[in-house]
């Protein structure tokens, strides 16, 4: 057991990140546990407001405070609790051992500095190179992420590049100091499909050559299936299901995961109607009692409205947070469509 612990690159324990607003406390992340092993890709999937982005910002120590604060929990990175580090210590890790790329390539680069300027910055602080050497290194990085004419590009400004190119620049910047963990927050959401395919391929090949771990945050089950080894499904600040990618898609045990998978149209089979999850995500200031999914869950009954389920091992390496996951299994066997095709 101790041995296995040592292997973990990241070990998040009971993380709670709250936002203290005038209207009340928003429990954006409310007690989540997960781990990332060296060289693997962990996918975190969920809809807007589920807390997936806040999770990544918590790891980076970039939650805006006030109003945000890590209220509880540990984030162990190579055994060190990041939540206890000083700002100065955290800065040595950010951009160096853990780096991050964001959703909006259009706004994530500073419009008034050149590409080279922005990439070399991290190299200068973390690797201690001179500006000139760092610029050379930046050209190398741009080459690695597949940007044509890198010598020319480093002198250009972000607005001169397309969205896909900018995301490549972000990746070059993130990888410039050989991080052990790359956090990617919806890196392809703002991009077109053909460009998304390019970026995903690039990330996969860079992962192979750099051997880093990736934490991939997205709402797109397709991207998750494509790139992750293991997946955590988040809903209303909690992880509701957590297992490896093949198991998740073959045998989803949480009604939310199940619903999510059935609500997206498939390319390889035709259905007349999609099985939509009814209702909307509850207001974070006004979460229901009991299971947070109970306002939308067709299986919700009795206990679901009063007691919050704990996350349990439903099978070896398959965690789920639901009182009725066994009933769901039964229904799946009998081919019951739990999300009725209501009109």
């Amino acid at each position: 057991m101790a041995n296995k612990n040592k292997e973990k690159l990241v070990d998040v324990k009971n993380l709670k990140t709250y936002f203290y607003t005038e209207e009340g406390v928003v429990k954006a992340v409310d007690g989540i546990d997960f781990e990332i092993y060296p060289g693997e890709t962990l996918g975190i999937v969920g809809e807007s407001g589920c807390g997936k982005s806040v999770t990544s910002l918590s790891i980076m120590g970039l939650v805006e405070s006030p109003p945000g604060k890590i209220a509880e929990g540990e984030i162990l990175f190579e055994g060190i609790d990041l939540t206890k580090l000083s700002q100065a210590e955290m800065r040595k890790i950010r951009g160096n051992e853990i780096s991050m790329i964001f959703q909006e390539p259009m706004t994530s680069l500073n419009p008034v500095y050149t590409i080279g300027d922005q990439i070399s910055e991290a190299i200068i602080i973390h690797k201690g190179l001179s500006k000139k050497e760092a610029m050379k290194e930046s050209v190398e990085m741009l080459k690695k992420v597949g940007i044509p004419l890198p010598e020319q590009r480093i002198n250009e400004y972000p607005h001169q590049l397309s969205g896909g190119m900018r995301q490549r620049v972000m990746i070059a910047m993130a990888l410039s100091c050989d991080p052990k963990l790359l956090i990617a927050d919806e890196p392809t959401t703002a991009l077109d499909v053909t460009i998304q395919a390019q970026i995903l391929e690039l990330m996969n090949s860079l992962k192979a050559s750099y051997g880093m771990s990736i934490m991939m945050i997205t709402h797109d089950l397709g991207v998750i299936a494509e790139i992750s080894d293991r997946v955590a499904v988040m809903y209303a600040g909690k992880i509701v299901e957590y297992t490896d990618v093949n198991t998740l898609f073959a045998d989803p045990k949480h009604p939310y995961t199940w619903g999510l998978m059935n609500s997206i149209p498939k390319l390889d089979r035709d259905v007349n109607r999609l099985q939509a999850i009814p209702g909307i995500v509850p207001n974070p200031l006004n979460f229901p009692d009991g299971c947070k999914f109970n306002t939308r869950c067709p299986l919700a009954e009795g206990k679901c409205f009063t007691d919050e389920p704990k996350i349990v091992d439903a099978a070896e390496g398959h965690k789920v947070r639901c009182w009725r996951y066994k009933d769901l299994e039964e229904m799946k066997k009998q081919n019951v469509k739990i999300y009725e095709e209501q009109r």
Partner: protein
Amino acid sequence: MAEKLLEVNNLKKYFPVKAGIFKKTVAYVKAVDDVSFFVNKGETLGLVGESGCGKSTTGRTILRLLEATAGEVIFEGKDVLSLNKEDLRNIRRDMQIIFQDPYASLNPRMTVADIVGEPIDIHNLAKNKKERNEKVKDILERVGLGSEYMRRYPHEFSGGQRQRIGVARALAVDPKLIIADEPVSALDVSIQAQVINLLQDLQKDFGLTYLFIAHDLSVVKHISDRIAVMYLGKIVEMADKTELFDDPMHPYTQSLLSAIPEADPTKKKERIILEGDVPSPVDPPSGCRFHPRCPKAFDKCSVEEPVFKDYGDNHFAACHLLEE
């Protein structure tokens, strides 16, 4: 033989590019450049393409929210582009639009009742206030919103609910054709399914015809009967949806289909990764517009523009490979 409700012939929409000292028009963005297609009564035609391919401009030009540069838009035998103001207003009873952004598409200072009631007032579809309110109530219920919502303002609703209000507004005039411009792409996955189901139900109940504009191929495939694929202002392929997905003819369609990440980790499909970015529509490549990125391009492609023609069973495509 299916009856054509809408026929678009050689539609062009160019936007002037102004530059230089005197802001003279130095070039044109050829957003829509010689596009022809038709939509049959009662069917859904999906119009897909990546951002900047001109699909939304096509939709807006058909409705004359933008004035076309050239071409014909025939709706039930009438050329929409040559109608005068009065006739245009009348024809707008039959053609409606649903927008992408559920936040920008509803007037924040109007109640839901007024938003949905406005089309009824304009086209005098109700004899008195009571009838109008009845109608509004009716329509709201059809899109899954209770009449208790009538006095509320848009900002009180979630994105999915707002999109329903937008649908109700379009529905209020009892249109024949609805142009749906990316109606679900701003919504969360679980909400997308609700709105897609709604659109399908309404189509069945009212015998609606849809021109469904989207960038998400799986959504388009789910809802459409036929699909047209746009690239850089042109339609490169158009066919029945099963035909298009089973046997894509154009290399762009092929790579587009292969690029979609599928929610199935067991399926590792062969990707055709396209090189580079979509070129600027101001100065599109010569010959076939896809040739600089096309994995199968040959000499002729950069010189001569391929003709968009029927390769049997209403499977249209524009590619030199097919002519060989």
